């Protein structure tokens, strides 16, 4: 896989023109891997996100209001 795009100038010299478009798939793949890993984590490992503080705060806030 190429890392850079190169072009030739008027004198035939190679000049750097940017990064290779092949790298686009590396970045897309990184996002897909992150998303899949997160889905698996939420599905298999994540603790139950119960709201332990909410009820106490709700009572306190109701009293203030």
């Amino acid at each position: 896989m190429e890392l850079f795009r190169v072009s030739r100038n008027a004198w035939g010299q190679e000049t750097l023109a940017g990064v290779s478009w092949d790298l686009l798939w590396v970045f897309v793949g990184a996002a897909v891997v992150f998303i899949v890993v997160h889905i698996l984590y939420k599905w298999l490992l994540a603790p139950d996100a119960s709201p332990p503080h909410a009820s106490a705060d709700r009572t306190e806030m109701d009293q203030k209001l």
Partner: protein
Amino acid sequence: MATGEHRPSDRLIRHRLVDRVYHWTMAASVLVLLTSFLPIVGLKFPWIDAHWIAGVVLTVAVAYHMVRALFWQDPRSMLIGLRDLRAAVQATQWVLRRRAEAPDRPGRYPLLQKLYHHGVAILILLTVVTGIPMMAKIDGPFWTRDPYLLSSGTWAAIYVVHDLAAMAVLTGVMIHVYFAIRPEKLWITRSMIFGWITRSDYLTHYDPALWQAETVDESKRAAVAPER
């Protein structure tokens, strides 16, 4: 807040209208800019005009946001402090089942939102800073192209940084959209559309001692007060 006259709204302000307009303007311009990757995958279309116009819109929007965030909002709320790091350690222990109690709730912005914001901010600023001189490579309504404005080495560096930052923005947008549509995060997405969260969301996800959210009613009464 006195409530003798009427019961206060159950809706609390999370994002004001100007901030939502900024967010969606930035989102639309970034999506247009990212369509410039489509010709790479075979979908050819004349992308250059749409790209530079969306780039100008993004630049103006980011400049507006920076001024507003620094002078009209509370930039300290975006700083990462010891409290964030302590909560991160607690969260890690909680995930690993080494801690029974849920981690401390954050103020207005949780650590991961701060990290995402700062990361994307750096990437967007890199694309803006490198995209502005690139406009010298094309003819526009108020200027003529001058591809020799910079040396070939400088142009190469600009293109490399612009390309890498743009690709990384694509990664960030994919992850951002993924979280925006996750069922347990829809209340955050709703707040970016309508501006408010419910009191239940507020008490579940934030520490009221660290972020004193205004109700929609209070916000209407104090529309000109500085945001804190």
